[in-house]
C-alpha cells in the first residue's frame, strides 16, 4: 500500500472521530434501528418475581440514584413501574438518597400521566404513594424493619401515612413481598444486610452498568433474585414488557458506538502493521 495512505489511516484527525461518534449516537435517537435484544436470566429473575405476584400486592421501590445517572436509570425505572401498574400491583416509593427525590417524582408522574391518558386513572394514596427522602442510611432501614409507618410518619406531600389506604396491613418491611432497588451507588449492600438478612424480603437490583459486576456475588449467594444492569438490562426489561422504549433505543446507540470504536482500533492497527511491514521491506532492500 502507498505509504501516504497508510500514514493517513495511522493518524485520523480526532474531529472525524468525534463527528462520527456524535452521528452514530444521534441516528437511533432520531430514527430507532430496532436491533434485536436477548433476554438474560439475571433480568428474568426480576421480571418473573414481579410477574407472579397476585394483583393488589404491594411492592416497595427504592429510588436511590442521582440526577447524573438518569439517562441510564430512568428507562428501567419506568419499565418496572409500568410493569407493576399493568399487573395491578400497588407501588410504594422511598428514597434514602436526597437527590433521588426529584427522580422519583419525575418517573411516577410520567407513568401515572400515561395511564391517565390510556383511561386508567391511578389514585395517589391508593394505587401508589411516595414516602420521600428518609435520612439515616442503614439506621433508617433498621427502623423500617421494625415499624414501617413509624419510620415514615409522613409522605413527601406531608400526608399522614397511618391514614393512607395503600399502607393498610403493612407493619414492617418484611410485609412487602418484593423490593426493587434502583441504585447507582453501593446502597444495595445495606438493603441486603438489613432488609434481606433480617426479614428475608426478596430484592431485585436495578443499577448502572458500572455497579453491576460488583453485585454478581450477591446474586450467586441468593441474596438477590436478579439484576437489571445499565441500559442493556433496561432494554431487556422493555423487551419482556413488549415495547421498545428509551433503553432499547439507547442500546442501539451503544452497540453502534462500540462497533465504531472497534473499527477505528482495527483501522489503526492494520495501518500500523502495514507500516511496520513497509519499513522491514525497505530495510531488506
Amino acid at each position, binding site marked *: 500500500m502507498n505509504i501516504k495512505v497508510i500514514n493517513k489511516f495511522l493518524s*485520523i484527525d*480526532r474531529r472525524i*472521530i*468525534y463527528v462520527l*461518534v*456524535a452521528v452514530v*449516537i444521534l441516528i437511533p435517537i432520531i430514527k430507532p434501528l430496532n*436491533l*434485536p*435484544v*436477548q433476554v438474560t436470566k439475571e433480568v428474568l429473575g426480576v421480571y418473573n418475581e414481579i410477574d407472579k405476584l397476585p394483583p393488589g400486592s404491594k411492592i416497595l421501590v427504592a429510588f436511590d440514584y442521582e*440526577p*447524573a445517572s438518569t439517562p441510564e436509570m430512568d428507562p428501567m425505572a419506568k419499565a418496572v413501574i409500568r410493569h407493576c401498574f399493568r399487573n395491578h400491583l400497588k407501588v410504594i416509593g422511598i428514597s434514602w438518597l436526597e437527590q433521588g427525590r426529584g427522580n422519583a417524582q419525575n418517573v411516577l408522574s410520567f407513568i401515572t400521566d400515561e395511564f391517565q391518558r390510556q383511561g386508567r386513572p391511578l389514585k395517589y394514596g391508593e394505587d401508589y404513594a411516595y414516602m420521600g427522602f428518609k435520612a439515616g442510611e442503614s439506621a433508617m432501614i433498621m427502623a423500617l424493619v421494625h415499624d414501617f409507618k413509624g419510620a415514615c410518619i409522613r409522605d413527601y406531600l406531608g400526608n399522614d401515612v397511618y391514614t393512607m389506604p395503600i399502607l393498610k396491613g403493612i407493619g414492617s418491611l418484611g410485609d412487602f413481598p418484593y423490593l426493587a432497588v434502583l441504585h447507582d451507588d453501593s446502597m444495595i449492600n445495606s438493603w441486603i444486610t438489613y432488609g434481606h438478612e433480617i426479614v428475608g424480603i426478596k430484592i431485585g437490583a436495578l443499577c448502572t*452498568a458500572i455497579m453491576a*459486576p460488583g453485585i*454478581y456475588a450477591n446474586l450467586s449467594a441468593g441474596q438477590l433474585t436478579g439484576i437489571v444492569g445499565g441500559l*442493556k438490562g433496561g432494554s431487556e426489561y422493555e423487551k419482556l414488557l413488549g415495547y421498545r422504549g428509551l433503553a432499547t433505543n439507547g*442500546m442501539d446507540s*451503544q*452497540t453502534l*458506538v*462500540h*462497533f*465504531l*470504536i*472497534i473499527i*477505528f*482500533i482495527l*483501522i*489503526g*492497527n492494520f495501518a*500500523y*502493521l502495514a507500516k511496520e511491514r513497509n519499513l522491514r521491506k525497505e530495510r531488506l532492500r
Partner: protein
Amino acid sequence: MDFFKRKFPILVVFVVGLLMIIAYYVPHKPFNQFEGGASMWYMIIRSFALVLAFTSLIRSHYLKIREGKLGWGYSLVMFLALIVTTVFGVLPYGKNNLFGTRSGTIYMWIFDYVNTPAAATVFSLLAFYIASAAYRAFRVRTIDATIMLIIAIIVMIGRVPWGEMFSEFMTSKISHHLVFIRLDRLTSFLLNYPTVAARRAVYIGIALATVSTSLRVILGVERTYMGSDE
C-alpha cells in the same frame, strides 16, 4: 519564636493525628466525641479558607479586566455569574420565593439550568474522548499492549446485543462445542478473576502506602507542605 514558627505546627499535626487514630480504637468518652467534633472544626476552617480561593479567583480575573487582556469580557461574565448566584443564594428565604436555597428559588433555577446541564455536558465529553483515546493508544506495539487491546475488544463486544447474537449463533447453530468462545462468559470470567486479582493487589499496595505516608506525616518526617521559614 522559632519554636512557634517551625515546631509548633508539627506538634499540632502530631497531636491531632494521634487523637484521630485513638478515636478510631477507643469508643469511650471523650475520645468518641472527638471524631465528630474534629470533622465539624475541619468544615468550619475549610469554609474560611474558601475566602482565600475567592480572592485568588477575583484577583486573577480582575487583573485581566483592568489590563484589558485577551478575553477580559469573559471575566466580566464570570464576575456577574458569581455575584448573582452568591447573592441570591445567601440572602434569607422570604415570602416572595426568590431568595434562599430551596426549590423554586432563583438560586435553584440557576443551579438546574446552568450548573447541572453544564456539568453533565462536560462529563459526557468522555464518550468522545474514550473513542479517540482507544483509536490512538490501542496499537499492537508490544505484547502487553496487545493483551490489553484484545481483552478490551472482547469485553466491548461481549456487552452488546450483536456480540451475544454471535455467541448464541456459534453455540447453537455451528457447534455446541464452541461454548468456550461465548463472549459473555469470557467477559464475566475476565471480570471476576484476573481483574479482581489485579485490583485487589493494587488496593493492598495503596493501603500500605497510605498507612506509611500517614505515619510519616504524623511523625513529622514529611514536612514539605509546611513551606519555607521566611
